[in-house]
């Protein structure tokens, strides 16, 4: 076990894309957003119960923005523990019950007040992960992402920046995927050393969270965990977005092309083409025969 006064922070990033969850509610009534958040609360409580110095943060990632569910600003500002009304009567550790109530209240605020623009089922995870990284700078931390909707292909570069920043800070990124496989998260887990798991049965979310994602990195070496997924590291060409195995890379802007072209479309440099050397025909001296 870690030493007594080592702070360990767990940041749980929950994807609350309302369009995906709305469709999910019609597909399967048993597993809705509130059930998912119940599982998240169980995970958060267990993490805080493991050690006195463990800390928790929960961020909800919406379509265009991200909100901190716990700790929330209002709690930090007026922090007196003066709400006796929220302490539950069943003798639960007060920190856990406060956390649960705050999460429930904040998610209600978020879902009712945030307006939904557009019809996209993609979520912008990169911004949320960036905020999560700013949180855990001096302390040992790890991030658990619970992903529902599909990837947004436009955020590749920002996502990679976030992944490299996490790797430099030794922050693990774990991913628990509910629906469709996400190539970006697979790369994130592979590069930072975290775990990637696509859940076969969504109703058992709490079980998977507790069995697979609760132990931290030192304890994971002693457990038998799901094998690493095969990550596709092939690059996509800039012209057709196909995955290619051999490509041409511009030396100036590092854009990748599948075919040779004399001008780079991104930075508009003209490339030097190696032409075959011209061999001048040698003038043969006519032998003078006498």
């Amino acid at each position: 076990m870690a030493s007594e006064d080592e702070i360990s922070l767990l940041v749980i990033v929950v994807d609350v894309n309302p369009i995906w969850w709305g469709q999910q509610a019609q597909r399967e009534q048993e597993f809705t957003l509130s059930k998912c958040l119940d599982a998240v609360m169980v995970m958060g409580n267990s993490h805080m119960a493991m050690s006195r110095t463990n800390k928790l943060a929960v961020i909800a990632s919406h379509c265009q923005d991200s909100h901190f569910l716990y700790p929330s600003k209002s709690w930090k500002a007026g922090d007196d523990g003066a709400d006796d009304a929220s302490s539950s009567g069943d003798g639960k550790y007060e920190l856990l019950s406060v956390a649960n109530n705050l999460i429930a209240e904040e998610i209600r605020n978020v879902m009712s007040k945030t307006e939904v623009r557009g019809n996209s089922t993609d979520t912008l995870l990169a911004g949320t992960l960036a905020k999560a990284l700013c949180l855990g700078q001096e302390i040992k931390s790890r991030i658990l992402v619970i992903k529902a909707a599909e990837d947004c292909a436009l955020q590749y570069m920002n996502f990679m920046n976030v992944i490299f920043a996490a790797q430099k800070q030794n922050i693990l990124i774990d991913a628990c995927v509910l629906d469709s496989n996400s190539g970006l998260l697979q790369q994130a887990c592979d590069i930072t050393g975290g775990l990637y798991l696509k859940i076969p049965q969504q109703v058992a979310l709490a079980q998977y969270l507790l069995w697979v994602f609760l132990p931290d990195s030192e304890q994971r070496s002693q457990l038998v965990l799901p094998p690493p997924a095969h990550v596709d590291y092939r690059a996509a060409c800039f012209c057709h977005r196909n995955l290619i195995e051999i490509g041409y890379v511009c030396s100036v802007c590092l854009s990748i092309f599948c075919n040779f072209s004399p001008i780079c479309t991104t930075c508009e440099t003209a490339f030097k083409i190696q032409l075959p050397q011209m061999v001048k025909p040698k003038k043969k001296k006519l032998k003078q025969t006498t």
Partner: protein
Amino acid sequence: MDEEPERAKRWEGGYERTWEVLKEDESGSLKATVEEILYQSKRKRVIESHGQVRLGMMRHLFVVIDCSRSMEDQDLKPNRLTSTLKLMEAFIDGYFDQNPISQVGIITTKNKRAEKLTDLAGNPKKHIAMLKKAVDTVCVGEPSLYNSLKLAIQTLKHMPGHTSREILIILSSLTTCDPANIYEMTKTLKSLNVRVSIIGLSAEVRVCTVLTRETGGSYHVILDESHFKELLMLHVKPPPTSSSSECSLIRMGFPQHTIGSLADQDAKPAFSMSHLDSSSGPSLGGYFCPQCHSNYTELPVECKVCGLTLVSAPHLARSFHHLFPLDAFIESPVEEHQRNGFCQACQGELKDKSIFTCPSCRSVFCVECDLFIHDSLHCCPSCIHSQTAS
């Protein structure tokens, strides 16, 4: 140290009264001044970006380390050689972090000769292992600038034109023993487009000034160990390319990583081509070159069989932030900002002297988050939320 010889040298100016920096406040405590100094040192690390200048991403760098008698001097603890080698390990880590598709080689010079410690390679482990072993070398004799430059050029001149060719010399001795005219060597370096930079550990030497000025590099002399580290780290960032370097399309392969297991019917064991001389046996998995299917354990690597450069997409992605650098945030005093006293990134209170505002999305950040964003993250957390197209 100065490029223009007309500027006054340090001894020609007045004395610098360093004690005047510290000022006491009314109660006689130095706390405010110390905090100010710490704050300034934090801000100094945010290096200004070059703007729209083409940077050399694929670099071939040779580092020449002086191992002559003057390296046993103990003005850097425990002695100059150990301190240099330790800083070099940190430099190599930082170099491959910022330039994943570049290569580095190490040359040592002593006893009027130069020899290669490691050849140009893209894998940091080998270099760091050799640096650790080099701590035991005996420092003897005089260095030879000419010989080390000649040894470096022998490899650099075969490198393709679109890469940047650089030599970084760490010179502690004030003398050099050259078999031929060093100014002729300077002309050769200029014609081959090699940029030479020097970090001096003792004092400024004229031949170094001329060498760096002619080839377009930089010359600095260290003040102490932390200054040494700063100067070394200046060379980690990719330099602006010279106008005569060519731009070309480089053919590269992106191999798939296969994790072979014994249960897999098609898995065939293969030897890794990069470790043929080591005693490790064949492995089932690894990276297979798309052109000739030879096996490699790590990337990036140049295939020994068919000559194709093999990289993975994240290696190229690591360099993207150089191409799209993040603008510096606007600093403003904290009293002007009354709305909510929380940093948008870490939700902490804004208790420092000043706050930083992103020019495009006007979100507010504290000092630590600003430093983190510019050093490691390279993108503003609020801007990437509202971007619908990157």
